[in-house]
């Protein structure tokens, strides 16, 4: 978090879109789908990272590829920046409006266009909510694997933009593994089809893979084709309670070293456990525990008990105080609750929460967590850790009050130190939340200027005038060379 924008009044910030342009946009998408009313625009002033707030000049909500193309054409012809937005659940400020830009939202593009069960594929519009896709494919015995924590509200278009992960990507991989084809609207409203279920022929570069994770900086995906998986027959969920975070970390390493492939391995630390147990989400985790480890296996029913037994043995061997095993769906939900409701629970102990995101080699987790605790002490900040332990993806959550300027400054300094620490041990500045505006100025920690210039060049291929989501991902100007 580098520059926390303060919320100011609409009138002092926003230059309204010229009336003639609004009329043109309304001709394309309909009267009520161009939002210019200051009160309604406030809804779009931030994404899930509310520390940054910019009220857009207008919001346009098209319903089809054709409408998106025409809207982008009108805006780009007028030299107006376009900020794509899904459900606005992102945590890096990727959907934050720009001062001169118009937000193009995909909320009305929420149709599942085709479920091809025979080929295990689905084609859908970008505004489809992640969990809805899995719900819709359930009757075919199929599901969509990437499961970000926000899956009940986040959209597939947003998942494509951010290359989203989720707890179960330890076994199944992230969004990019499942996207087989895209229809995208590029600069000036050009509609381009990338990939496809039958792949690309010789000499084709993986442009789908390049587009996924481009954070709205290349264009807008308006149709998405994804691969589906057969629903697994069974699941086993364990909750290991440890006195120390180090012991929980060792258990994770031991489980992976034993040859097991859990679907998910998640850890919450003591600060998080206490926050959860003091909230309405109380899950029954012991508040004196140093850490709680959720381990989940899925697959063919027959082998799951053996896997769970093996993982349980690893946990006890590394000093687990107790290991619970879910006996039914309700018990499973209860074991997961302490992890899944962690962010919600923190809301009651501090007015603001900075959800950080970084990845380190898994074996570095214990030392990094100790160091993060020291950083918290150094800056007199409470930091609660929730993380995808299986793949070393940390979420140190810094609790603060944004109305306290001194605290805000300490948060920024602590945040930067945590990022530097993760990079120093061979990690990176973001594992799944994306760079957005939040991590943009940290990019030089992981990329030298040659590499940053390469990223700028990549953007220019798709967006030569820099009119898609400017100011995100890459520090420094993209155009003007």
């Amino acid at each position: 978090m580098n520059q926390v924008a303060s919320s100011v009044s609409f009138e002092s910030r926003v230059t309204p879109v010229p009336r003639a342009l609004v009329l043109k946009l309304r001709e394309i998408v309909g009267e009520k789908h161009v939002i210019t009313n200051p009160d309604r625009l406030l809804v779009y002033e931030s994404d899930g990272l509310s520390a940054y707030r910019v009220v857009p000049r207008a919001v346009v909500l098209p319903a089809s590829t054709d409408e998106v193309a025409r809207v982008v054409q009108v805006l780009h012809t007028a030299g107006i920046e376009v900020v794509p937005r899904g459900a606005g659940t992102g945590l890096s400020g990727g959907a934050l409006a720009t001062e001169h830009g118009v937000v193009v939202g995909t909320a009305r593009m929420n149709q599942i266009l085709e479920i091809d069960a025979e080929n295990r594929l689905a084609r859908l519009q970008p505004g489809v909510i992640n969990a809805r896709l899995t719900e819709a494919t359930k009757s075919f015995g199929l599901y969509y694997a990437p499961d970000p924590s926000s899956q009940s509200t986040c959209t597939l278009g947003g998942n494509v933009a951010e290359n989203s992960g989720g707890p179960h990507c330890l076994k199944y991989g992230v969004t990019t593994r499942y996207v087989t084809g895209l229809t995208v609207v590029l600069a000036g409203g050009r509609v381009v089809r990338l990939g496809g279920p039958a792949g690309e022929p010789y000499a084709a570069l993986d442009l789908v893979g390049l587009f996924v994770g481009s954070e709205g900086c290349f264009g807008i995906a308006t149709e998405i084709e994804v691969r589906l998986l057969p629903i697994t027959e069974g699941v086993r969920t364990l909750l290991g309670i440890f006195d120390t975070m180090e012991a929980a970390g060792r258990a994770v390493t031991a489980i992976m070293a034993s040859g097991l492939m859990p679907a998910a391995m998640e850890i919450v630390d003591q600060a998080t456990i206490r926050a959860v147990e003091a909230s309405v989400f109380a899950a029954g985790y012991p508040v004196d525990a140093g850490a709680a480890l959720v381990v989940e296996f899925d697959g063919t029913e027959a082998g799951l008990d053996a896997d769970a037994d093996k993982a349980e043995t690893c946990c006890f061997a590394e000093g687990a105080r107790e290991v619970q095993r879910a006996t039914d769906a309700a018990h499973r939900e209860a074991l997961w609750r302490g992890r899944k409701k962690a962010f919600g629970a923190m809301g009651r102990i501090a007015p603001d929460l900075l959800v950080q995101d970084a990845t380190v080699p898994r074996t570095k987790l214990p030392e990094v967590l100790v160091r993060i605790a020291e950083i918290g002490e150094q800056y007199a900040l409470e930091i609660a850790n929730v993380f995808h332990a299986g793949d070393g993806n940390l979420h140190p959550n810094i609790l603060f009050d944004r109305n306290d300027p001194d605290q805000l400054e300490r948060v920024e300094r602590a945040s930067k130190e945590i990022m530097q620490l993760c990079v120093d041990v061979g990690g990176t500045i973001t594992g799944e939340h994306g760079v957005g505006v939040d991590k943009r100025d940290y990019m030089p920690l992981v990329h030298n200027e040659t590499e940053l210039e390469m990223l700028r060049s990549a953007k220019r291929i798709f967006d030569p005038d820099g009119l898609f989501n400017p100011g995100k991902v890459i520090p420094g100007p993209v155009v003007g060379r």
Partner: protein
Amino acid sequence: MSVGSAMPLADVVSAEALVEPGEGGSRIVLGREPDAVVAPGSIEEVVALLAWAESNSVGVIPVGTGSHLGDRRPPGPYVALSTERLNGVEIYEPADLTLTARSGTRMGDLARVAEEHRQWLPFDPMDVPNRTLGGLASAGVTGPLWAGYGHLRNHVLGMTVVCGDGRVLRLGGRVVKNVAGFDLIKPMVGSRGRLAVITSLTVRLFPLPAVDRVLLLEGAEASSLLPAARAVATAPILPASVVLSVSGDAGSRLLVRLHGARETVDADQRTLESHAGGVFAVAEGSQATEWLTATRDAGADAAIQLSLRALPAQLGALLHVARGPMAGMNQELMADVIEGSVRLAWSGATTDAALVIEELRSGAESLGGTVTVDCCPVGMDPVARSSRLSADAREIGEGVKRIFDPGGVLL
């Protein structure tokens, strides 16, 4: 500038890097012999060679073992850049399940290193032990194991590459989740050396499965095994791989690979037998390896190798297309049942091959599919014979090429 022996490469790279064409591992079949073969031993030598090549208008083609280069027919002088001396494991953290190796490292060597820690790289394209990690990434091939483990491109976590103009880029990193910037690794994988020279890669490893079982069904014709193949592909489990092979006159085989704990594999086998309506022959250990290797490497030395791809449910129609012009020809066919692709390999005269490929292409495209020519005889352009890219994909692809290799050094 004169080329060949007159190329002043002794001033550019060390003496050890200069290789006589045709020597050692530099089996290079490009349609025209390179004017020089250079095997740099360091990233600095790669940089020096590319900088020299750019300033002297000499083309460069990176070469692993040369198994998938095709016939590129460079129009002007060119150097084959062999990665055989860019060899060896740089970092291996078994507990992190990640490994960094130089691009010329053979997959067979990597497999031996990983196996010591009961880990592996689940990639099984044709002749995989003899190919290099960089070559595999450059060709963008995974093999049928993608069904259970995902494509190679999803397991390349990081790369060090040298662009055509000598810029060194470190893409990605050593961690399994990383979204810090646009994913430039994706277009690199499968770019066939046209964007940049890969000097090292970091890949994700997997634990070796406790049981690696192969289920086998045999039949006289591929068509007789197709119902069982599709039943397996649509069963409610995900096998590690499912292939259907036809080898010359030896008949057809359906091979299903199951991985996991013994009781899991036993249960999965029962599920598949119930769905396929038959009982499989079963093998583990050396017998299973023998079956798999024979299928995997069939046709590895064939002059013509190509793959057809459509949707998985169209596999029957695609097999029909694949078999049509091949009647009476001694070809090897392997279908990836989960992907809906068919790999064909055979040897024959160039003129006949051109006609056959044309018929295959037309048939596959009529199904909405594609044909990719991987290897073909000298004198035949694999790009021209393959399905065409859309104009948009070509234009954007050219843009990507320009940012990696602005001088067009990499051919």
